């Protein structure tokens, strides 16, 4: 006991001198300050518990997120790393002398030639017009060369509905390949039903003079089928914008050039 007391006293004295010492840990349990900290422990316990719950919560979130990211982003990358999808290529010189090989190469070359001729025949040397409805631009070609381009107006993509919902009109320019069906100079507009409905006007009977309006379609009009026309406009400030009821509007100079270049049967490509 005597010795023990001496040792304890010695330790106490050491701590008093040097609290940063390496042996502090060994004597912590007998440090009076630590004893009071241990007494405080029960009061701190809820805080530790809370911190632990928070830590577990965030760890769980992290694990779930990591798993989701792994499934959504890493697995697709791993899928592309599969090894066995490439056949081995050969470049055997002896094979190239083989008659069977030469025959097969000859056959495939013949096929390519035939297909190329067939495919190139689709692009005729005749004049044609290309209309881009997204950008509202047109491109006029002769002998496969671009001779004129500019702004136009195409369908507004508006759906006109009557109050009762019995009539619905969608104003869009038809896409795909069409052709010039007819050419007219000084056209007058035979107003269809929707043009009256759109303005809240009563619909006149068919062939009524009230339906005819001249001067609004410019000097020329070219029919491309199904009632759609390429024509001029009095609303030139709207060129380059989608504002029409489905027809293609051009300015006066462009219209004249297109009219003079395209013939009946000329192709109209609209996309």
């Amino acid at each position, binding site marked *: 006991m005597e010795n023990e007391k001496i040792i304890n006293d010695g330790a106490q004295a050491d701590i008093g001198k040097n609290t940063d010492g390496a042996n502090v840990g060994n004597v912590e349990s007998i440090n009076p300050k630590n004893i009071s900290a241990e007494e405080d422990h029960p009061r701190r316990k809820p805080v530790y518990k809370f911190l632990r719950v928070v830590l577990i919560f965030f760890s769980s979130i992290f694990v779930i997120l990591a*798993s989701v990211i*792994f*499934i*959504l982003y890493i*697995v*697709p990358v*791993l*899928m*592309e790393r*599969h090894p*066995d*999808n490439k*056949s*081995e*290529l*050969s*470049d*055997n010189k002896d*094979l*190239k002398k083989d008659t*069977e*090989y030469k025959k*097969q*190469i000859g056959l*495939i*070359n013949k096929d*390519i030639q035939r*297909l*190329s001729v*067939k*495919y*190139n025949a*689709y*692009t005729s040397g005749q004049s*044609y017009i*290309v209309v*881009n*409805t*997204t*950008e509202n631009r047109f491109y006029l070609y002769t002998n496969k060369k671009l001779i004129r381009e500019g702004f136009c107006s195409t369908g*507004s*993509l*508006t*759906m*006109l*509905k*009557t*109050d009762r919902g019995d009539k619905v009109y969608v104003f*869009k320019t038809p*896409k*795909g390949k069409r052709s010039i069906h007819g050419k007219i100079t000084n056209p007058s507009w035979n107003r269809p039903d929707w043009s009256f409905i*759109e*303005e*809240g006007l009563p619909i006149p009977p068919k062939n009524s003079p009230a339906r005819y309006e001249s001067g609004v379609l410019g000097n020329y009009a070219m029919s491309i089928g199904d009632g759609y026309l390429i024509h001029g406009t009095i609303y030139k400030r*709207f060129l380059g*914008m*989608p*504002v029409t009821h489905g027809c293609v509007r051009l300015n006066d100079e462009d219209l004249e050039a297109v009219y003079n270049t395209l013939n009946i049967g000329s192709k109209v*490509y609209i*996309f």
Partner: protein
Amino acid sequence: MAPEIKKEPHRKVTLIVLISLLAAFLIYYSVMSVMSPARKLEEIRKEYSLKTSGKDGIDKKIVNDSDYLRLLKEKAFLQSKTLMAVTDSIYLTLNMLDSTANLEISGVVVHKAKMSKMEISKILSGNENAVFSMLSTPFTISSALSTIKKEPVLIKYAPKDTSEYKPDVMPDTSIAEPVCYILEMKGGIRIYVYQDDAVKTKDKISLLRFDLTDRIKDTWIALKRVAVAKLPEYHPFIKIRLPRTDAKIIYRALPKNGQIAVFS
């Protein structure tokens, strides 16, 4: 104090079991997913491989010859384009060698676009005669997912009389939504088109949402298959970057079930 001592190991065990289960599932899902491309390739081989035996069969050595495959690829692309040119419809040709995306109608190129970046699935880029045979018929779009509308139709109600009539106001052409879309083909091939132009910060969020929607949709389908011990569907892909205007033009021009030819 005593009950807590008992609780601790119990919790730990639960946690370890849960983490192990999750890890096991992730490994199982990954293995199943990694196996799916090989199965897809096998399917393609079964359906499209050139005959290498029998009376009309081509010698196996010839089928694997580099010159022969190069010609076969060229023929496949031409064949595909010729098939599409017969119709009056708009179609797309993607030439990965010269980085061009062309809109064509009946053999006439109506719009040309230059791809700035492209990435192609290993299956489609491999030198596989079966793949070239598959490419000799055009792909048909079965569905599309996009950040923009195909046809931004505006609904307008007819006025009751002339007093209600308002002439059309100038349309707003300044709308600059980000352009990004995924075209899914019949047969499972997907074409991803991204706009090349820089995206605004607010658009980045909508693009992230778009990307996540696609990934989640795919993963959900894959998880359902994996849950019943089936391999998930693998979708060979082509990812391209185009200028925003070109990407928009192509998307709006292609019909709903439009066709696409690929030269890889």
